[in-house]
């Protein structure tokens, strides 16, 4: 037997009432609960829908849907976290080592050629671009924000500020005269933090893109539940 739209709405309402508001989490619980309710009603045709739902809910134990929902939520977060770090560390692969070293060296040398003020202007322009791109990715219709996959996939963008803080600290608080192996420490840390920033930004954007794509495809399928 198949549950009708009204019965599915009742289950959906019950899940939402328990505090699980993210649509992708709700839907995975909904299908699991609905399948269990259908099985119970098929096994015992005298069992009412409400009784089958309560029985199913009870079978989840004293924590109700919490363990189940937390399991789904954690694994969605873990999925995007793994994806993010995979993108981030892929830049350290043997194919890109030379590129990475040249980039660090390039930024280091660039600081010798231009004055601190000009370098700061370049940095600010770069940051404005990064901020603009991040906003473009994060600002989406409200429906996206109801999906755990969107929230998890775009959660890395706001953390860009931490690396920015490191760059700023290096530029303002490390004395210019410090050297290590004849290299200027301040310039070196600024170069490294800029590269770190770019790699982090690249990984965050790629993760966000995938999460947006997945959320978009889910929205298309879940539309029938909003109608």
């Amino acid at each position: 037997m198949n549950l009708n739209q009204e019965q599915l709405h009742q289950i959906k309402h019950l899940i939402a009432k328990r505090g699980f508001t993210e649509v992708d989490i709700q839907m995975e619980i909904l299908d699991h609960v609905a399948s269990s309710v259908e099985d119970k009603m098929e096994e015992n045709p005298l069992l009412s829908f409400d009784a089958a739902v309560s029985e199913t809910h009870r079978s989840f134990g004293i924590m109700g849907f919490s363990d189940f929902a937390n399991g789904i939520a954690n694994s969605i977060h873990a999925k995007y976290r793994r994806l993010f770090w995979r993108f981030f560390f892929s830049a350290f692969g043997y194919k890109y080592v030379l590129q990475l070293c040249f980039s660090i060296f390039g930024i280091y040398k660039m600081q010798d050629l231009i004055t601190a003020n000009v370098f700061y202007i370049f940095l600010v322009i770069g940051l404005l671009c990064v901020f603009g791109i991040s906003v473009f990715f994060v600002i989406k219709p409200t429906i996206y924000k109801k999906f755990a996959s969107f929230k998890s996939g775009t959660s890395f963008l706001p953390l860009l500020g931490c690396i920015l803080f490191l760059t700023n600290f290096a530029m303002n608080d490390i004395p210019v005269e410090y050297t290590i192996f004849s290299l200027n420490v301040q310039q070196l840390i600024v170069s490294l933090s800029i590269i770190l920033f770019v790699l982090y930004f690249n990984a965050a954007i790629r993760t966000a893109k995938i999460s947006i794509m997945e959320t978009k495809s889910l929205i298309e399928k879940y539309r029938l539940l909003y109608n």
Partner: protein
Amino acid sequence: MYIIFLYICFMAINNELFKGTLQTIILNLLSENERMYGYEITQKVKFVTQGELLLKDGALYPALHKLEADGLLDTDTEVVGNRVRKYYSLSKSGEKEVVNKLQEAKDFIAHLQVLLNLKPSF
């Protein structure tokens, strides 16, 4: 009361052993069934073990999502009976991994039999 206590202990030990092989079980089930959804997996495990082992929902979904994140599973969502259902299937690397995982499990069982002096019943 004592029997119930023993049964609970037995189930707890079984489930602990079960947890360690959960990924192998999921991969193997998917290699035999092409694609399955979450509830179907729990019911299949219950049916195959005649209710002796119950796959908890709180353990199943994290395992499924981990396998998905590791690239061993592909997923697709489908509208089935007025709701959206997420199906899990083996990816190309999942198909390769299932062979390794099964071999690992078989080796482990063989070692366990030696360690515990058990004689295979087959």
